[in-house]
């Protein structure tokens, strides 16, 4: 019964979305509409299939809750602060490890790109370790660090490290040599000056891509790590939901992961656009 009452606001919600999309298309630039449109359409299609499945299969709500119930739980968790706290914990873990990766990975990438000896030494090591999924490190991380913060940070470090290093190497190597020459005839007299005034800014867009992509891979990995061994975070929320047979809670966790992932990615893209 509560399912039904929760379901009523849905169509109006959908209608609002559509109206919003239409309004957007007419008022704002066509670019913005083109960017948002596909997402709205995708959401509507997911909602449609979801509701069709419920109508056709009539599953118990522990297996597949209604859209309305999930929405209800979502706002419940949101307003209780539970969702935000767990999302914050997960984000903080990713951010910490990601920063460590950046601090180590960017200088290392520069070294590999500029020093042939370093490239020959380090490249094979990277190529050996890169194909190993960060998730495969979870058991070792638990053995080495227990289920505390360090283990999680370690796994995210593994997940974020390679995209940062590889994009930095690529960015530095692709710097147009003529820009370096221009820098030299415009007064960059030593290699440090040339590096900071020309090479690094020229490689920055590529380095930012590495930072953006790695945040995504780190964000995907933290959930897995928290599923296995944690007592807080979005992964933990999901694992907890499973244990107490609350599929709506599981879905709320998943939705939060998706929303935060898209938002962070959009933030990076906006930042990269401003810089480049």
């Amino acid at each position, binding site marked *: 019964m509560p399912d039904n009452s929760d379901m009523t606001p849905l169509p109006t919600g959908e209608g609002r979305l559509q109206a919003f999309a239409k309004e957007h298309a007419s008022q704002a630039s066509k670019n913005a509409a083109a960017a948002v449109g596909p997402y709205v359409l995708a959401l509507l299609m997911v909602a449609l299939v979801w509701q069709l499945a419920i109508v056709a299969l009539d599953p118990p709500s522990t297996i597949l809750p209604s859209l309305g119930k999930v929405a209800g739980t979502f706002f419940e968790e949101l307003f209780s602060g539970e969702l935000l706290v767990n999302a914050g914990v997960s984000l903080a873990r990713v951010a910490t490890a990601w920063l460590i990766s950046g601090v180590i990975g960017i200088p290392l990438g520069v070294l590999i790109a500029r020093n042939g000896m370093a490239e020959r030494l380090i490249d094979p090591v990277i190529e050996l370790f890169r194909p190993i999924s960060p998730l495969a490190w979870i058991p070792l991380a638990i053995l080495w660090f227990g289920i505390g913060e360090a283990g999680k940070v370690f796994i995210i470090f593994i997940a974020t490290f390679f995209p940062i290093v590889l994009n930095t190497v690529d960015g530095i190597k692709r710097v*147009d040599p*003529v*820009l370096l*020459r*221009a*820098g*030299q*005839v*415009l*007064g960059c007299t030593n290699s440090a000056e040339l590096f900071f*005034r*020309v090479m690094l*800014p*020229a490689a*920055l867009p590529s380095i930012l891509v590495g930072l953006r992509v790695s945040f995504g891979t780190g964000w995907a990995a933290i959930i897995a790590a928290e599923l296995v061994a944690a007592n807080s975070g979005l992964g933990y929320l999901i694992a907890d939901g499973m244990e107490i047979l609350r599929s709506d809670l599981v879905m709320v966790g998943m939705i939060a992961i998706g929303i935060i992932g898209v938002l962070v990615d959009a933030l990076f893209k906006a930042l990269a656009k401003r*810089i*480049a």
Partner: protein
Amino acid sequence: MEMTQIAANGKPGTPTSADAAIEITRVSKQFHDGEGGVVEALRSTSLTIGQGDFIAVVGPSGCGKSTLLNMLGGFDTPSSGNILVENEPVEGPDIERGMVFQDYALFPWLSVLDNVMFGLRKTHSKEDARATAMKWLDLVGLKDFAKKHPKHLSGGMKQRVAIARTFATDPKVILMDEPFGALDALTRRFLQQQLLKIWSEHRKTVVFITHSVQEAVYLANRVVVMTARPGRVKLDQKIDLPYPRTITAPEFRDIETRVFEALDEELAKTFAVEGSDAYAD
């Protein structure tokens, strides 16, 4: 008449205008071709360039004219012989030898103004650098584009920014490597006129590499034709025609013809050797 302005431009202690700005003495250059062979790009080339001269260098593809320019810029060293700029040997790139590149080489992350200010940061205060950069942007007619980024500019505008950026640092010598090669004919003509105007007002020693004989004769007061590889000086043609020059005038045509004749002989050699796509202009 313009020659007298140079003395006024000369700094205390520097030689008089009769002295050479650039002295290239028996310079040769060989490259390894990467397959164990050696390519001789330049053979015992000597050239003396006076203060405030505008030298245009033309020659068949692969005649070593870019090699020569790179050595003047300090990006490459001669295999033998030596190069003096303002009586000093060239040791690596230097802000005293400005360079304008064919593909502009503007820094895409900097605004037009910041591009022009790039070379001024170390020697000028921020306000000074800004004022100087704006002056030069004004001279090339791009004052209104100071805040724009290079990606919003056309090719001709980018090259004008690059020219402003180079002249702003007040180098002793300006090296230009086919600077207008990528531009359409009309833009090219406009930039040639603008460059001549700047050069007549701020007399610099210019070494200008080009594929176009007409461009060379239109701009330079001396045209150097290089031989086919290995490059040497084939023809050293002074041009005393007053500026602005008329490309349809008989005197202009005469000089153009002389340069073309010298070039044609070398082209014939290049074709005989390669039987391929080498051409100039």
